[in-house]
């Protein structure tokens, strides 16, 4: 995958991600919130069409900062941070063409770290290793999308197995850089992981935002292997 193709794919997927989030805000009972997201619609449409992508990325970045001010921080935690990071790297790639490989490589590295660091901090936590932490997530955290899911907390063996699978997957994710087949397997597992998180914990925006960053790591792996 060429750098140009990867950049373009990232722009299109990210524009769809931002549009989806804007649509959700449009039905908010808070009218000021709905109005805040209106500028995203034409901006994302222009980005999908590839019209002045440099200025559109910059405008979307500034708009995102206004959104962060409105909510006094991220509205959706990690997915806001990843979307903002992608916008920053796209804007940097457009306005500093000599540095665009570096900018996009930084995005690929952060994507890799997003899995590896999450696995590393869990590995160091005995409660994650034993499955206790995941039981806590199901038992009393605010994340399960329905009360019936809390019953999973009563299945300690399943929780232990799932915890170890998550830790193992997150720690081994950097192996995707070694071979295209490992890349395909790793990204498929990552997507399945995000889909599970979306269905169990309602983290739907993470699925699409992380998907928008995948072209960067596919390009990066090809770039490393020459």
């Amino acid at each position, binding site marked *: 995958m060429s750098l140009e193709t990867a950049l373009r794919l990232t722009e299109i997927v990210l524009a769809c991600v931002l549009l*989806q989030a804007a*649509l*959700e*805000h449009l*039905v*908010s*009972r*808070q009218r000021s919130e709905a109005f805040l997201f209106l500028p995203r619609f034409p901006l994302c449409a222009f980005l999908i069409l590839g019209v002045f992508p440099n200025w559109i990325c910059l405008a979307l970045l500034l708009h995102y*900062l206004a959104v*962060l*001010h409105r*909510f*006094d*921080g*991220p*509205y*959706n*935690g*990690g997915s*806001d*941070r*990843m979307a*903002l*990071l992608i916008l*920053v790297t796209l804007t940097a790639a457009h306005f500093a063409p000599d540095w665009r490989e570096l900018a996009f490589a930084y995005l690929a590295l*952060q994507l890799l*770290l*997003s*899995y590896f*660091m*999450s696995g590393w*901090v*869990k590995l160091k*936590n005995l*409660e994650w290793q034993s499955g206790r*932490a995941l039981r*806590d*997530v199901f*038992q*009393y*955290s*605010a994340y*399960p*999308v*329905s*009360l*019936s899911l809390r019953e999973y907390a009563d299945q300690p063996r399943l929780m232990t197995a799932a915890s170890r699978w998550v830790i193992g997957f997150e720690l081994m994710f950097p192996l995707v850089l070694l071979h295209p087949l490992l890349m395909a397997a790793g990204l498929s597992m990552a997507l399945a992981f995000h*889909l599970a998180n*979306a*269905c169990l914990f*309602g*983290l*739907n*925006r993470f*699925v699409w935002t992380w998907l928008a960053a995948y072209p960067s790591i596919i390009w990066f792996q090809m770039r490393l292997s020459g």
Partner: protein
Amino acid sequence: MFRSLALLLPALVPSWRFFQTIEASPRIEFAIHRPGECMSWQEFQPPPDRLSPLAALWRLFWSPGRNEALYLVSCAERIVIDDREHAKQEILNRIRASIVPEKLIDVVQYRITLVQRVGDRLEREVVYTSPIYAVRGS
């Protein structure tokens, strides 16, 4: 300018420590007060008892209510950790928007309860109780 930088920095240099530890989990509860009536606290935006696989799949594409609920959990955490006024107002605004007052004199109050595991038991502790506000107000 400094505020913008402070908001941008965590995105530029993220820590990516998802679910590092499972902390006490906040619940937002509210009560409508009417003269002569006992108030009863009810959870704000509680999750449904069950969610069909089809509904869970649909939420991949359309989940404004769930994302708002997660945002309000963040707001509750900001109040518990930093006593942030903005977060207090956000929760109040969304509770107000969700209820239809029966009488103009209705007033509303909310509180934040932390749920955490102590040993093998779950314990709940009220850590913040808001002032009383008019249901309709600015």
